[in-house]
């Protein structure tokens, strides 16, 4: 019988034929945690009596969530990670290197891999045709120690993005539209497999955005088949040797197939306090913003910063609005610097912060005040997410965010891109 991409990858890693619903212990290719979850993983490795990691070259720690450290407790957690990595030979990416998910796709994830990470947005790597999923610190500790994990092979929902995308509409709008439709638990325990003619043509950065937010529908992973676009990306990254074509078999059994007509999608906004509480910007009442944040593993890549800069060129951020921009990796930062994108952003009034998670996690670098409103390109807007339960977070594409920063309220980017 035909297999879905998840069934194929998990079967390979278990060394036997598996189908949706089966349980298996599998080998894993990439194991990672970050500074919020890594210290607990390290203590669990030690608690289980392991002194080494199984595959140091494929075991990663990222200091991205509170980087540079805003307080001593976190500085001490960073020391735990640095010490453990240096003792075991695990790979560590220290402050300023970027968000874990972005560094993994740039330099490590290969099509067909199983990637596990102590971060819910580990599913980002699914854009390269990997089975990538988030877990907790103890699972990741076991992954470090044994290079194995246990999985239930998920049932798959196929998402076909069909027809065409209108001007001013981006991958972020598509994924918010999808989550609004299927709700924030519409894909719990399921894999999402993305396709359709729009999906097949979609650039790699857009695929990262979409896979990144699969978990916001509850999904275990969000996978694109690997194809010529994946191949070109890996080639540009100097990693062509790890390219493999991974697609679902003909006759693969899907739990459900959802067809999305992209031509009806408008720029979307998620309203407080859930991602699925979304509607088109055009239907939104006038919402004044105090802060606009462009960045994160969802939308902090060069193409995102470029879209924002094109809108902000020769314009100014509205009075009373703070615009914070955080490149998602060092490579992104350098490219934006070399191509003048950062200059444009700074000229417009933006504040640029070092690569990392920025204010998304509510630790530092833009914590909101009581009653304040932020429009962000991040992936979630739960109450308290940005450090204050008495603030309000809206989510959008970088284009909507940039245009809203100019207007001072949440505004439709088609007014400027149309």
């Amino acid at each position, binding site marked *: 019988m035909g297999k879905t991409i998840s069934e194929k990858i998990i079967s390979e890693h278990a060394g036997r034929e598996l189908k949706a619903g089966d349980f298996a212990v599998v080998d894993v290719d990439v194991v990672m945690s970050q500074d919020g979850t890594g210290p607990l993983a390290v203590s669990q490795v030690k608690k*289980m009596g392991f002194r080494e990691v199984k595959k140091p070259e494929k075991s990663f720690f990222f200091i991205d969530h509170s980087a540079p450290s805003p307080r001593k407790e976190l500085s001490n*957690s960073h020391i735990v990670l640095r010490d453990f990595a240096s003792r075991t030979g695990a790979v560590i990416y220290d402050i300023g290197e970027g968000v874990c998910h972005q560094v993994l796709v740039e330099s490590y994830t290969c099509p067909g891999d199983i990637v596990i990470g102590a971060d819910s947005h580990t599913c980002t790597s699914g854009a390269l045709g990997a089975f990538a999923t988030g877990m*907790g610190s*103890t699972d990741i500790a076991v992954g470090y120690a044994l290079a194995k994990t246990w999985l239930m092979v998920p049932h798959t929902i196929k998402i076909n993005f069909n027809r065409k995308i209108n001007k001013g509409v981006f991958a972020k709008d598509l994924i918010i539209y999808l989550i609004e439709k299927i709700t924030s*638990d519409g894909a719990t325990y399921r894999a999402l497999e993305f396709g359709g003619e729009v999906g097949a043509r979609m650039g790699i950065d857009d695929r990262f955005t979409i896979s990144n937010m699969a978990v916001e529908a*509850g999904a275990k992973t969000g996978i694109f088949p690997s194809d010529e676009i994946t191949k070109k990306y890996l080639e540009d990254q100097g990693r062509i040797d790890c390219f493999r074509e991974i697609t679902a078999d003909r006759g693969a059994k899907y739990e459900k197939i959802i067809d999305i007509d992209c031509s009806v999608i408008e720029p979307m906004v998620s309203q407080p306090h859930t991602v699925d509480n979304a509607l088109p910007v055009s239907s939104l009442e006038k919402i004044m913003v105090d802060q606009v944040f462009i960045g994160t593993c969802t939308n902090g890549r060069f193409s995102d910063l470029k879209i924002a800069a094109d809108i902000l060129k020769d314009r100014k951020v509205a009075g009373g609005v703070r615009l914070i921009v955080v490149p998602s990796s060092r490579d992104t930062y350098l490219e934006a610097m070399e191509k003048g994108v950062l200059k444009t952003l700074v000229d417009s009034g933006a504040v640029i912060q070092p690569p990392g998670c920025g204010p998304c996690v*509510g630790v530092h670098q833009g914590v909101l005040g009581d009653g304040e409103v932020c429009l962000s390109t991040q992936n979630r807007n739960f109450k308290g*997410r940005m*450090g204050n339960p008495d603030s309000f977070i809206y989510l959008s594409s970088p284009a909507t965010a940039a245009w809203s920063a100019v207007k001072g309220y949440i505004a439709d980017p088609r007014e400027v891109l149309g």
Partner: protein
Amino acid sequence: MSGKKKNSKILIGKSFKFGDDISTDLIAPGRLFHLRSNLPRLAEHVLEDADPDFAKKVKPGDFVVGGMNFGLGSSREHAPAVMKIAGVGAVLAKSFARIFFRNCINIGLPALVCNTDKIESGDVLEIDLKKGIISNKTGNLELKFNPLPGIMIKILDDGGLAGHITKNKGFKL
């Protein structure tokens, strides 16, 4: 409340009812990120942004009862960990977000899927983990919960994933 009875899989406690979509940000918020290295201190703030007094009111063995999609959001294992440290004996919900559910089992905190509509805050529940039955002593009714997959029962029986791996020197599922 008495918590766990000796030599049995019966849990007894009082319920604290929450709504749908209780995120890990409400359970263990990012603004307290620095306390993740001190879980007993973080536990003093457990669920604070959903119910500011919960940490003061909860007694060992009590239950957290949610609606749909309990634990959505981040992978932070600290969220179920601080619930357990605060004394929570089990979490009941109509449905759980995947990572949170897996984390509960990994740390040895029972997470039970059942229809929670007929449970109110303050109800005294007696839960038979083996039989899969929740008796609402206050509401005077019985509820069934979905049995866990065999793999998860093994992990829970070993006291969580770390216990399972230590005991078996690897996976034995």
